[in-house]
């Protein structure tokens, strides 16, 4: 119970923290709408108006991933800048319970992207929100956000050792959009990318949302997304503890 409370309160605290940053707010407000607009005009140019809802959902998911990526890349770095990394690592709780809320908060705030792109598509471009499975869509969206938060922890844990975590985070935006089939179907990619796509929780999350939008078996995809995400959480926990010990031993927690 106290673990759950730590996670929930931590997520709320970091979500509030993010919501106080004009930089985060402006980017979260504008960039998903730019991406959604770009997707709408591309799909219109391709004369595929029946896929506009799929494009809006894909653009929203891209926004959630961007938010998680920025949040995970900056999860450790921001604590370093604020001078609070040593303090949170000294907290008498497992490091995962301290870092997971940071990446979960970025996934939760990223949910705005999905809502905004759907609303933008409906209001500005008149895209009907005709989901084949509306309830399953909501559940898949929650699973997807939770999964991305856990995937974010795995990334954040590897960033403990890096001085410039952003260098790794910056170029990861487009590859995950591409490999996960958020806008481009995976079948359009070279076949060697298939195994890479299959181990990403984002692939299954995107698939579950697409199936809830267009029809298809939502639950298996959502379940696989959740299972891979839990594996990421376990792996991220192991990495985090191991890397934290190494950084403590080398005296580089605040410097690396």
């Amino acid at each position: 119970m106290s673990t759950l409370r730590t996670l929930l309160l931590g997520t709320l605290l970091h979500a509030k923290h993010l919501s106080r940053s004009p930089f985060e707010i402006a980017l979260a407000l504008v960039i998903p709408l730019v991406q959604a607009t770009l997707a709408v005009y591309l799909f219109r140019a391709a004369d595929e108006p029946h896929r506009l809802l799929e494009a809006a959902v894909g653009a929203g998911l891209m926004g959630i991933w961007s938010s998680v990526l920025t949040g995970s890349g900056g999860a450790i770095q921001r604590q370093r800048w604020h001078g609070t990394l040593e303090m949170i690592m000294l907290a008498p709780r497992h490091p995962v319970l301290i870092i997971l809320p940071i990446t979960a908060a970025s996934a939760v705030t990223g949910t705005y992207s999905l809502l905004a792109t759907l609303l933008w598509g409906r209001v500005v471009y008149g895209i009907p929100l005709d989901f084949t499975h509306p309830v399953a869509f909501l559940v898949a969206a929650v699973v997807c956000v939770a999964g991305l938060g856990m995937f974010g922890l795995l990334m954040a844990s590897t960033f403990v050792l890096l001085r410039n975590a952003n260098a790794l985070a910056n170029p990861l935006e487009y590859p995950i959009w591409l490999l996960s089939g958020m806008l481009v179907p995976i079948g359009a990619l070279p076949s060697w990318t298939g195994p890479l796509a299959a181990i990403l929780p984002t692939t299954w999350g995107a698939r579950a949302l697409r199936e809830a939008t267009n029809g298809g078996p939502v639950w298996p995809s959502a379940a696989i997304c959740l299972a891979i995400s839990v594996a990421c959480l376990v792996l991220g926990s192991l990495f985090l503890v191991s890397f934290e010990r190494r950084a403590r031993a080398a005296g580089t927690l605040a410097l690396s």
Partner: protein
Amino acid sequence: MKTLRLLGTGGVLAYRALFNWTTPAMYIGTLLAGPTFQLLFFAYLGRQLGVADDSFFILGNAVLAASNACVFGGTMAVANERRYGTLGHVLLSPRSRTVIFWGRVLPYAGNGLLIAAFTLLMGVLLLGLRIPLAALPGLALALAAGSLACGFFGLTLGALGLRFRDVWVVSNVSSALLLLLTGVNVPREGLPHWMIGVGQALPITHAAEAARLLAAGRGLGAAAPALVQELLVGAGYALFAAVLLRIFEAESRRRASLETV
């Protein structure tokens, strides 16, 4: 001669001091790998949708690849002086601040050209783009014009940093809008008229058009009007940045807000 030295040497010194992405890891990750992945994303999306052929997306994204280095670099050229507490020293200089700041754009434009060329090379190697050899000098000119225009556009945004504290919001949003409004990823005839109109006044738009004409083997004569337009856009932003820098410098001195971060 002294002015040229101020432009050249001053620009290079400032580049080394203020450009946040000069470490190898940041440079490769953000400025080389990032644009390459962006190119692949739009090329595969374009293939799947059948909106345009590969060359449309490769050339558009190669020109756009310069924008990150140039737009953010131009912003850093001003904003990072304030961040590192050295803005006052620069503004106290007895030399022309306009020349100082214009000089700063040149290394960023050179860097942008390098990144754009690298991205184009990736397009050739990974996606099999074929470019006529005779088009290469003209393409280099188009990429250079786009980089220079982007650099001055970035400097204009950086000038806003003398007035507004969070200039990075403006840079990030502007960078995202370049993706949409310049027609590098959506054929411009598919965009609304007002977006096309805004795109005409933005860097990259005309350079991308020139690059596509050149790669299609249409020759420098056909691409010249677009190249001239790109250079005019760049010159316009250079003047606009100089005016903004003067106004905001005077205002910052008057309001004693020069070092307010």
